[in-house]
């Protein structure tokens, strides 16, 4: 871990990120915008799966997930730049580590949806006709992404 931090601190990109005063706040702004896009579309999709706005066909609401993917990619890129720019602040930080684990679990939740539930949704099934714990997947997704935001936000206030 220490060697990784030392190496990141010695890279040209680290130097650049830390030398440009405008860059860090700009990355933060994009990171916040990305999280709004991600959670916004996750809310639309998961609440629909839980029975809100039944007038929206579940098979159609997937269109909004393009916004979740877009938001996630923005945050992956800006997030990696945060780590390269200030590795001492993130890599050893317990809130950061918990956040990363939660993102992995949320990712596995998406994989499970794609494998087990999406084929049923594409056949036009909804609500109680869906087998494989659709409601648990939706609730878990909402809880996980909310916790990702919370643990990300408290990173600066947690000492290791």
């Amino acid at each position, binding site marked *: 871990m220490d060697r990784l931090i030392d190496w990141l601190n010695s890279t040209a990109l680290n130097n650049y990120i830390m030398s440009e005063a405008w860059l860090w706040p700009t990355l933060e*702004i994009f990171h916040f915008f990305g999280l*709004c896009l991600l959670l916004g579309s996750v809310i639309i999709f998961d609440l629909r799966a839980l029975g809100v*706005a039944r007038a929206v066909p579940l098979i159609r609401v997937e269109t*909004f997930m393009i*916004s979740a993917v877009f938001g996630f990619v923005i945050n992956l890129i800006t997030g990696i730049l945060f780590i390269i720019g200030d590795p001492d602040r993130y890599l050893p930080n317990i809130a950061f580590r918990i956040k990363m684990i939660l993102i992995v679990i949320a990712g596995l939740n998406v994989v499970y949806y794609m494998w087990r539930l999406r084929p049923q949704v594409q056949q036009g099934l909804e609500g109680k006709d869906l087998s494989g714990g659709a409601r648990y997947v939706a609730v878990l997704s909402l809880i996980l992404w909310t916790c990702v935001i919370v643990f990300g*936000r*408290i990173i600066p*206030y947690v000492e290791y």
Partner: protein
Amino acid sequence: MEILWWIEDSKLGMLVSSSEWGYPIVLSLHAVGMAVLVGVSLMLAMRVLGLGKVIPVTALGPYWSVAVGGFVVNLLSGAALFMGSASTLFFNTAFHIKLIGVVIGLALTWWLVKICVRGTGEVSTTHRGIAGGSVAAWAAALIAGRLIGYFS
């Protein structure tokens, strides 16, 4: 501006500014509330602007209540955060711009819900204009909000 000091010295003000976990907890609530309010508002605006046209725009009405829920969380958590640093925030330009952005973003999103999402289902040029304006206002609020810490 005696009253700003009085607000900071109040019980809630001190809880936010000086207790170990007060500030991070309220700040986390504010971040989650933002994601809900701005996230859902952006989704409504994006549908009006053309994303997911296969979904009837009127079917998205119930999500407005979710956005309002996010706003209530942020009105309360924002008031608490203000009480924690009233004497500096009151004079912070980024904070002023953020408040204006939030008011305009909320008003435009509410207007959009009223005349388009709860309308006939037809999306007019006016509706798209309001949606575009709401996205711009939320972006301004988010940018200014993030810069508050850099202005002090």
